[in-house]
């Protein structure tokens, strides 16, 4: 990297780094629309990351790995949904339990399958990258938008797909209704619980993809690989105004903060602990600022 701040490279890093948060936040957006705050995103993502890594390592097939991650994460999400919706459990406690379950299970499985609780890495097939030689030389576009792995582009497409699903389909309308008017919905003979459960499982799918893009992007499984991204995703849902494109934008801002702090580590000589704390601080400040902003808008002077 050059001495000056290379904006294009920085933005490019941010685009490359945002996929996990985007996938998780889109999944979480669906549960949020049904009126549930899904704090299980973090654990689901961790489980997805481990499962997709383990399956890819065993099968040497990226597709199988991604499918494995999605399956594991959705199963855990279904358990969460079962307890929270069918079992009428407090959804926050049930979400915490899902996180605890995931963090414990992943370490147990890692010790059993790979003989270590630490970093596991194999030479896995890398995720294919989008390279368009004709456009690579175009300034900015080449550096920012090209050369990322396919899951990054998939995450952006998913944002559009979620928007279509939520805003334009009957299913999406009912999904929203299960959050905003469950009583009216029940009066029409529809079951809000069913839509909530579907949304929870969908959040599992999103987190599975998020986990896959974390571990397959690294070709390694690192303990606590999700490192708070599930929580950042929650803040992104909130800041994005419960709209999938807003969520996408918020995730990009968080990813930019992350890649800036990685970059800043090089010249600020700040201790790495500060850098690690930065995403949480940014999310906290954003949460406070977002709440303040909404308050001010609600009460015009």
């Amino acid at each position, binding site marked *: 990297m050059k001495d000056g701040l290379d904006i294009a490279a920085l933005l490019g890093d941010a685009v490359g780094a945002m996929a996990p948060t985007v996938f998780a936040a889109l999944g979480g957006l669906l549960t949020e629309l049904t009126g549930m705050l899904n704090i299980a995103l973090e654990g689901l993502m961790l489980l997805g990351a481990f499962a997709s890594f383990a399956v890819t390592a065993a099968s040497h097939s990226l597709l199988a790995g991604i499918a494995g991650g999605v399956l594991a994460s959705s199963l855990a999400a279904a358990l969460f949904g079962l307890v929270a919706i069918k079992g009428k459990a407090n959804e926050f406690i049930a979400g915490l339990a899902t996180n605890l379950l995931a963090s*414990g299970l992943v370490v147990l499985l890692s010790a059993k399958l790979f003989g270590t609780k630490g970093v596991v890495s194999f030479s896995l097939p890398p995720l294919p990258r989008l390279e368009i030689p004709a456009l690579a030389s175009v300034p900015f576009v080449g550096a920012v938008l090209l050369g990322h792995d396919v899951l990054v582009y998939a995450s952006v497409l998913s944002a559009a797909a979620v928007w279509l699903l939520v805003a334009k389909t009957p299913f999406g309308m009912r999904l929203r209704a299960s*959050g*905003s008017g469950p009583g009216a919905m029940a009066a029409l003979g529809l079951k809000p619980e069913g839509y*909530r459960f579907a949304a929870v499982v969908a959040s599992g799918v999103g987190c599975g993809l998020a986990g896959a893009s974390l571990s397959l992007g690294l070709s390694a499984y690192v303990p606590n690989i999700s490192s708070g991204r599930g929580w950042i995703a929650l803040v992104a849902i909130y800041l994005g105004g419960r709209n999938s494109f807003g969520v996408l934008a918020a995730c990009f801002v968080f990813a930019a903060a992350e890649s800036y702090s990685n970059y800043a580590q090089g010249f600020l000589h700040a201790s790495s602990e*500060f850098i690690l704390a930065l995403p949480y601080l940014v999310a906290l400040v954003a949460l*406070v600022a977002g709440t303040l902003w909404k308050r001010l808008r609600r009460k015009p002077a």
Partner: protein
Amino acid sequence: MDRRSRTELAARWGAVGLALLAAFAVAALLLLAFSSSFASALGLFFLGPFKNLYYFGNMLNAGVALAIAGLAASIAFATRSFNLGGEGQVYVGAIAAAVVCAATPAAGGAPGALLGIAAGAAAGGALGWLSGFLKRSLGVDELISSFLASSAAVYLGDYLITGPFQDPSSNFQTTAAVPAAFRFAKLLPPSGLSSGSFVALAAVAAAWFLLSRTRFGFELRMTGLNAEFAKYCGIDTGAYAASSMAISGALYGLAGSVLILGSYFKAMKGFSSGLGWSGLAVALIAGRNPLAILPAALFFAYVDAGAKAVMVGADVSSEIVSVVQAAVFFLVTARALDELFLRRRRGGAPEASSVPGGFGGEPTKGDGGPGPGAPGAGGRA
């Protein structure tokens, strides 16, 4: 207590008992799946903690920190607030206690130790207060803000331990050791059980007194039981919710300082205790009654000690604890279990609204919109 609430309480205890049994079943299943010699692992898990005084004392000692952490979580629960920042609050509490005690002249004796404890509680309390303050003044969700602030605090704590407070004479990433004069006395050598256990007992007694015998405690509980009614009675519910977050943080900080003065004597980098999450589990089992914190903490101390025995003696890592905890969370919080018991006792389907939302002290979010996950809230509206 009228007949109906007694029936409900009995149902709740039935559900809790069932959940605890299921937790043991989950532990056994995990051992079956992850250990190469199931029988010996099972024996270690269930009997290991009682093998000798050393293991037994260490189990009790783990219960000390768990009890204080459980108290911390339950004070927040009492106003239906969620303090998910326990991990960071324990950590900053431990660092503050270690640093203050190491800097105090050893001649300070007991007051020096008290100073360290107070510093720990103040550090944790400040972190908890931040979330309470943000909630009260701006309406920022305390659940997320406490988690974010605590996660940042963990890393900043790492920085403090490896930077300004690093013990220059040590090769490890740790603060200087607390002088022997400030350490809690060992009660059951060679085990770690120390006079810090009296701190836990005193904290439990104080919390019981505060909640059930003072006006402050009454209004605090009212805030959690029925915020609308409390507001109507002129209780500043926002202030009580915020102070319960601060008290909760202070108790987590206290747990951290007791760990330092009783067990570790210095704050090491990454000594993440998991206490923030275990505290929630303890509080959930104990429910509203602070005195029930003690048996609940001992239960988890037992599970923890069993897992440690298995880790040392067999080939299973101690992370089975978090899976067992998860099972307890799932089962204890599932209202359906209560209804199962109620149905059996009444011989009919219970009205959902008659199930109290609160034995488990489980807060339901008042501001979460329609609150679909909060069937208990309907009963009090």
